């Protein structure tokens, strides 16, 4: 008899994918070798804004190793169009985004021409042989300045560089401000960062002239979406295109989109009839792969003497960069504005967002996408109110967080699915021993040492997207996820998912949940993803959607399989279907557990029928498309403890605690991994990472010598803890854990630093909190004091 396995959901199962990835046996795009491969390199504009007057590639073309040189005109002549925008808004301006610039280059890094050569070195050599005559134009980098009269125009189609305006209102903010006991006004800058996956982008395009089949191996998070956008951009039939995203070395949002370079690779493969490989360098990644964040925000907050926050008025200028990246309109709108209540009661909110073109790299979703910006604003807001009232920031949070609920209609738009915010807040305060920490802080201040304690109480939205909800909010698209679960004759199972794993560990977590569902061993479940020819049409992985939407689809397909298997078991056991119980991998007759067949025996019968009646369809396989009824809303409280050297302004992170509630947990170790990585990501933004342009639009942080990635020696070991409030939205009760760390940690760290600086009267410093910025704020405060 088969031993029923231990319950896998909730177990710390080691990741199935790790042995492959750790021993260097992963299949990354650049590992792929095809006979006859040619190499693509892109010539990028050194100017932020310039008219392209002439391109002379004659010297490059005669280079002995060069196979072809293409310009934007060549692509247009051959019918390659503009990269479409995947998320539309009312009155949005949609200037074209051609894979290679046609009339003007609009940011440093904009592709201007492409070389295909026999080898990479020659391709890069040939770039310097292309002569481009540019007429440099004045550039605009700052998104607020870009909307002022007389600013350089990035696109003729968008007057004043405004791509869209978006607004939402709940309650009556002006009244709240008028009736408040106090009002704080603050400008905050949520600066630009780079997703900085360890693997940059890469593509190999193959074309079979005989069949017209175009295959693109590509570092992406969502092969079907890439295929769809590619078909639309290239005017090429979708069913003739296959997109494969094999092992991908991190995405963090930056690999959701169809980029120009991948289109050029496909075009080149079709023109030359040879495999064409393109692998981005790190310097290119920092210029040509989307950036994140970049908001300039002014807010006013109304509060009562007792700490109750009554109103929030927000104006945000969101920098979109030079072109609209496919998801860009979604980020500073639906993923930002409706989250401006956060975990708080906050009844009156009004927000206005301007999406603005500038001469910079396009901005789109990176880890958190919109929610980090909202959370940062809210958490700074709470601490500023606490400072004004001379209240403990924990008390202001206690005063304002929502009571435990299920299905709470927020005033702006969303219905939060489930939450218990006081529980995570209290748990975090208890675990850090908050009162003692404050005492220690007082003691150290007397010795001239400045430690600070920062809280961040957050809620975020994941599980995109319930299509009906999204559409009712004015979005012109919704999302779902798909899965096929195929049981093989021996009872082994393959799960084909539309989700994509590039670090998240789905090969393990999905297998855990499905193995549990069928009562079989995790070794008997294989998860297949990332190939449009293998999986059902799916929408991929971003916004922490894989578990709540993708795994749920697989789970529902599994339920359909169990339903059918029960029918088969009933025949095998010669019992009524209603009397069959399925438990621990065995089907048995109620009340007679010894009359049983195993899952494996049923599977065999489904393919090698002996007792199945003719009217029962053979096989054991099911497909499900899950379109959830609502989003899901993970939440929690994080605490950072820092010490600031008042002489140099250097910040040292001493301690970090994350208490999260991401709904039901499939694998605590995997969730911890996501939380750790996310927290580091958010700390990086708070203290180190920043993309900087000068006024002319030159990129000053074009390599990792200047763009400061977080590093292990700068981080303490993290403490994590969890509560589990199941979501009512899906049968597994799961939410999402990929971004909570990033969303929560940035404000926790910034609040901690400002808490440390409280004795000096410093109230706010914009990120990243570099030593010089902290030092300057102290200088300024001392000057006043």
């Amino acid at each position, binding site marked *: 008899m088969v031993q029923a396995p231990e319950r896998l959901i909730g177990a710390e199962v080691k990741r199935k994918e790790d042995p492959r990835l750790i021993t260097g046996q992963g299949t990354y795009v650049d590992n792929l070798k095809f006979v006859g491969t040619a190499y693509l390199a892109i010539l990028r504009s050194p100017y932020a804004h310039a008219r392209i007057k002439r391109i002379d590639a004659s010297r490059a073309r005669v280079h002995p190793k060069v196979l072809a040189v293409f310009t934007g005109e060549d692509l247009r002549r051959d019918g390659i169009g503009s990269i479409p925008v995947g998320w539309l808004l009312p009155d949005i301006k949609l200037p074209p985004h051609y894979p290679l610039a046609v009339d003007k280059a609009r940011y440093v890094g904009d592709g201007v021409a492409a070389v295909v050569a026999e080898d*990479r070195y020659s391709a890069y050599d040939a770039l310097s042989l292309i002569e481009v005559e540019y007429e440099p134009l004045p550039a605009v980098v700052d998104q607020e300045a870009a909307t002022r009269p007389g600013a350089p125009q990035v696109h003729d189609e968008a007057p004043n560089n405004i791509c869209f305006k978006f607004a939402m209102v709940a309650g009556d903010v002006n009244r709240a401000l008028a009736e408040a006991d106090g009002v704080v006004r603050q400008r905050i800058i949520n600066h630009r960062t780079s997703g900085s996956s360890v693997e940059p982008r890469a593509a190999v395009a193959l074309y079979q002239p005989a069949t017209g089949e175009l295959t693109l191996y590509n570092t992406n998070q969502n092969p079907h979406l890439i295929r769809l956008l590619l078909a639309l951009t290239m005017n090429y039939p979708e069913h003739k295109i296959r997109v494969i995203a094999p092992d991908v070395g991190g995405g963090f949002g930056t690999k959701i989109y169809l980029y120009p370079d991948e289109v050029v690779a496909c075009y080149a493969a079709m023109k030359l009839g040879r495999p064409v490989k393109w692998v981005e360098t790190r310097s290119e990644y920092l210029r040509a792969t989307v950036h994140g964040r970049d908001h300039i925000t002014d807010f006013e907050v109304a509060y009562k003497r007792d700490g109750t926050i009554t109103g929030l008025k927000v104006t945000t200028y969101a920098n979109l960069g030079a072109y609209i990246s496919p998801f860009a309109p979604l980020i500073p709108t639906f993923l930002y504005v409706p989250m401006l209540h956060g975990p708080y009661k906050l009844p009156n909110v009004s927000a206005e967002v301007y999406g603005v073109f500038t001469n910079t790299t396009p901005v789109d979703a990176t880890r958190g996408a919109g929610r980090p910006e909202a959370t940062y604003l809210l958490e700074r807001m709470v601490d500023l109110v606490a400072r004004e009232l001379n209240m403990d920031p924990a008390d202001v949070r206690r005063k304002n967080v929502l009571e435990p609920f299920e299905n709470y209609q927020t005033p702006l738009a969303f219905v939060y699915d489930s939450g218990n915010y006081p529980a995570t807040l209290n748990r975090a305060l208890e675990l850090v021993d908050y009162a003692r920490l404050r005492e220690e802080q007082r003691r150290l201040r007397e010795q001239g040492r400045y430690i600070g304690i920062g809280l961040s109480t957050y809620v975020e939205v994941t599980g995109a997207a319930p299509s009906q909800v999204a559409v009712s909010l004015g979005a012109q698209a919704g999302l779902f996820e798909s899965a096929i679960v195929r049981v093989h004759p021996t009872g082994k199972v393959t799960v084909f998912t539309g989700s994509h794993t590039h670090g998240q560990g789905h090969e393990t977590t999905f297998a855990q949940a499905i193995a549990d569902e069928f009562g079989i061993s995790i070794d008997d479940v294989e998860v297949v993803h990332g190939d449009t020819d293998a999986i059902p049409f799916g929408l991929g992985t971003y916004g922490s959607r894989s578990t709540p939407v993708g795994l749920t689809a697989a789970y529902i397909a599994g339920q359909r399989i169990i339903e059918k298997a029960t029918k088969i078991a009933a025949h095998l056991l010669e019992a009524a279907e209603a009397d069959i119980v399925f438990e621990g991998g065995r089907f048995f007759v109620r009340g007679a557990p010894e009359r049983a067949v195993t899952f494996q025996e049923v599977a065999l019968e489904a393919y090698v029928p002996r007792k199945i009646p003719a009217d029962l369809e053979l096989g054991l396989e099911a497909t499900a498309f899950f379109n959830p009824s609502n989003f899901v809303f993970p939440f929690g409280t994080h605490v950072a403890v820092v010490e600031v050297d008042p002489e140099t302004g250097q910040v040292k992170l001493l301690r970090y605690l994350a208490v999260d509630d991401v709904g039901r947990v499939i694998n605590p170790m995997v969730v911890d991994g996501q939380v750790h990585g996310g927290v580091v990501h958010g700390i990086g933004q708070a203290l180190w990472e920043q993309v900087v342009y000068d006024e002319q639009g030159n990129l000053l942080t074009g390599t990792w010598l200047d763009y400061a990635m977080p*590093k292990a020696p700068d981080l303490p070991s993290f403490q994590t803890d969890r509560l589990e409030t199941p979501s009512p939205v899906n049968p597994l009760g799961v939410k999402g854990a990929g971004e909570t760390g990033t969303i929560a940690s940035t404000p926790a760290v910034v609040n901690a630093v400002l808490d440390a600086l409280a004795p000096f009267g410093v109230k706010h410093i914009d990120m990243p909190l570099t*030593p010089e910025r902290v030092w300057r704020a102290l200088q300024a405060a001392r000057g006043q004091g």
Partner: protein
Amino acid sequence: MFPATFEYYAPTSLEEALNLLRQNPEAKVLAGGHSLIPAMKLRLATPPALVDLRRIPGLSGIRLEGDQLVIGAMTTYYDVQTSELVRQHVPVLAEATDVVGDLQVRNWGTVGGSLAHSDPAGDYPAIILALGAEVRARGPQGERTIPIDQFFVGMFTTALQPGEILTEVRIPVMGPGTGAAYVKFPHPASRYAVVGVCAVVGREDNICRQARIAVTGATLYATRATAAEQALQGQTLNADTIRAAAERAPEGLTITGDRVFASEEYRTHLVRVLTRRALMAAVEKIR
């Protein structure tokens, strides 16, 4: 990330290397490659030929000659870091090596390369300068010895002539009554010094008999903070005199800043703070 085409030579004697350099005036010497190769990959450097020193015997190793510790040009950071001789006679050099780059850099990077490169943010240039060492070089005209005070002449430029190869550095051993420390404020991205200060202090009867202070990171190349040195000379060594001397550290230095991380003004401030900290630590270490 894809360098331009170049020739590669791997001579097995110094004479052969010098000949190759004579025949290829634009060629570059290759040591550990941890400054040169990144520059080539970004095409900031496009030498037509490289002359690799790694197969030349006798260019690496650490030995004591009289009151000088002699370190061969091809000796790696790792060898310095783990050398008993260095720990005993010039401990600051072994200690400071802990903060140079990372493990890989320390396994590949060489003493000669770090000095010959004269990186504005290099650590060794400041340390070797503060230690008052001298450098030996072989060139078409034979061998010569260059006092370290004359060695660094600009950003990425030294007193080495075209075709000359640095063969060793000779550091005076630190006798009784001397102490030294290197304090580095690393850039969060590159880990190079935003500012680094090395202080070497000689004390007799609690009076400062000698102070050599060298600054890196803030200046175009490793430079001595002579105003601070003079301010300390002949003074009783205590927190106040050290603070007063450190305040003067930026005097006479050409300090440059960047627009992303640390401005000229901030680096000037750091030069003061780090000089004070380095001096305090150096005094602490006096044996």
